[in-house]
């Protein structure tokens, strides 16, 4: 709500105005607490921070590097693909499992009864997912430059970084949707049920046979990957398998952004509707 200056000067005895400065701090406090929580939960922080970089080093740089005889295009494609893989996890699992748990444990109910600012709950979790995505991307970029010998400009790295951390948001929305509909115990299973096909059928780790490549387009991971590939000017794994040498041409940037924005919007709205009705 909008506060008046009168409220700011004289704290309300009967009024309820919230000075804008305090409102802003409430949003920040929520986001900070959410990040602390995720970073302090070893079962969450360790897999989602360590796994992408460990797999990138082993598969992306070492295995694929030796299989492709150090092909620079393949190296860039693997970097972009692992970036997408890295930012998917915190959003989907962070929202899916935390929201389901908080619903079940009554924390969400308490927060709804308390005067928590509108949207603060979701924004804080999105911020947490974006911070995790940022940490993961910094680690991947550092590894790519130091060990992978990637030939990308600073501008390209920055673009891919921005695309991927914002690209965590559609996965947050899918995770949120799952978290609003399942129990805490069932949430990891349901999140995996969405996460694994999105990742494997999104063409991130191996090219799909040409006859079923259309499936890739159903995965938000594919569209995020395409944006990264366009920014880096390298072909996808599918195209590399077919011997295409140029930049990706599987759709326009506009289409990919529209799909990702659409997924974010639709799943967030469905989840908010559910939360406001059922809690």
């Amino acid at each position, binding site marked *: 709500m909008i506060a008046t200056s009168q409220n700011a000067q004289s704290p309300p005895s*009967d009024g309820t105005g919230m000075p804008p400065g305090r409102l802003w701090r409430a949003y920040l406090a929520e986001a900070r607490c959410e990040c602390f929580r995720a970073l302090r939960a070893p079962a969450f922080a360790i897999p989602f921070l360590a796994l992408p970089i460990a797999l990138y080093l082993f598969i992306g740089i070492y295995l694929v590097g030796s299989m492709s005889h150090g092909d620079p295009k393949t190296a860039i494609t693997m970097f972009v693909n692992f970036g997408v893989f890295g930012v998917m996890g915190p959003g989907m699992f962070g929202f899916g499992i935390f929201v389901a748990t908080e619903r079940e444990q009554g924390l969400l109910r308490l927060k*709804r009864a308390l005067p928590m600012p509108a949207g603060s709950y979701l924004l804080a979790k999105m911020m947490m997912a974006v911070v995790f995505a940022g940490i993961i991307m910094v680690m991947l970029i550092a590894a790519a430059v130091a060990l992978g010998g990637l030939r990308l400009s600073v501008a390209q790295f920055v673009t891919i970084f921005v695309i991927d951390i914002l690209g965590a948001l559609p996965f947050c929305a899918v995770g949120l949707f799952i978290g609003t509909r399942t129990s805490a115990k069932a949430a990891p299973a349901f999140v995996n049920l969405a996460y694994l096909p999105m990742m494997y059928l999104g063409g991130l780790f191996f090219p799909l046979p040409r006859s079923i490549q259309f499936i890739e387009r159903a995965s938000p991971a594919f569209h995020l990957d395409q944006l990264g590939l366009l920014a880096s000017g390298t072909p996808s794994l599918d195209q590399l398998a077919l011997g295409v040498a140029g930049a990706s041409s599987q759709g326009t940037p506009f289409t990919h952004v529209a799909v990702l924005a659409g997924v974010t919007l639709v799943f967030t709205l469905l989840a908010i509707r559910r939360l406001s009705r059922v809690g």
Partner: protein
Amino acid sequence: MSDHHLAELSGVSKRFGKTLALDGLDLHVRCGELLALLGPNGAGKSTAISLLLGLLEPDAGSARLFGQSPRQVAARRQVGVMMQEATLASELRVREQIELVASYYPDPLAIDEVMQVTQTTPLADRPYGKLSGGQKRQAQFAIAICGRPRLLFLDEPTAGLDLPAREMMWTLLCRLVKQGSSIVLTTHYLEEAEALADRVVVLAKGRTIASGTVNDMRALVVCRRIECHTSLTTKEVAGWPEVKSVRSEEQRMSITASDAETVVRRLLAADAHLAQLEVRRAGLAEAFTQLTQEKES
């Protein structure tokens, strides 16, 4: 809504599937009072509070909080909440939890002050998940009062607390009421309502079956309780017309009677060795049991 009512349910009905949780309930909270909301499980206490906090919408009737819809965050900025079933984030420290909730309010108390009055200062840097049950209640209480609320909703605030912690909370609740806060308390400890409440509302099957001061409640129930050591059996005594209920534990008999004098005369006549006779007015517990039983029958 009346000026002196901070929160009000008017003719509220709420149904969950086939269950009618609230049936045209009227309930209000006055300024500066401690209202104890009592009732057996399933009476509708939680539903009533959920409606006052905007967690549910009534099917019929209206819920108002400070003259507004409870769904308005502005209304809830004057409210503090402690929920028995809520588990706070286990990874966050007690101080962080209080700081976070205090940030929701326009003019919260200083964090150190909150921790001092709720005796949570020694717990400040401990993660919530590592606290004992009683310490968790204390931390939740700190969260409830940190926003300097005019109205506090406390759901079983002393469940699981040891005696000193319970007394600390009782003292604090009395002080808050003296300072002008209003409190809505749901509790299973009738002695707690008896000791603290200015007013008691007893719910059963979604309706108010009695409301008034603790003394009003007792007066509603004409029964008195007689206790004594006797060799008479409960079976014999239970047959007497003035006796409402009787139970016996290790020779000590406890009788609830509508006409205590007649029963005492009969007891003394029937058992020459009767000893340790006590007669007292029914407490809130007896009143509560009788009221809810009457409603059910």
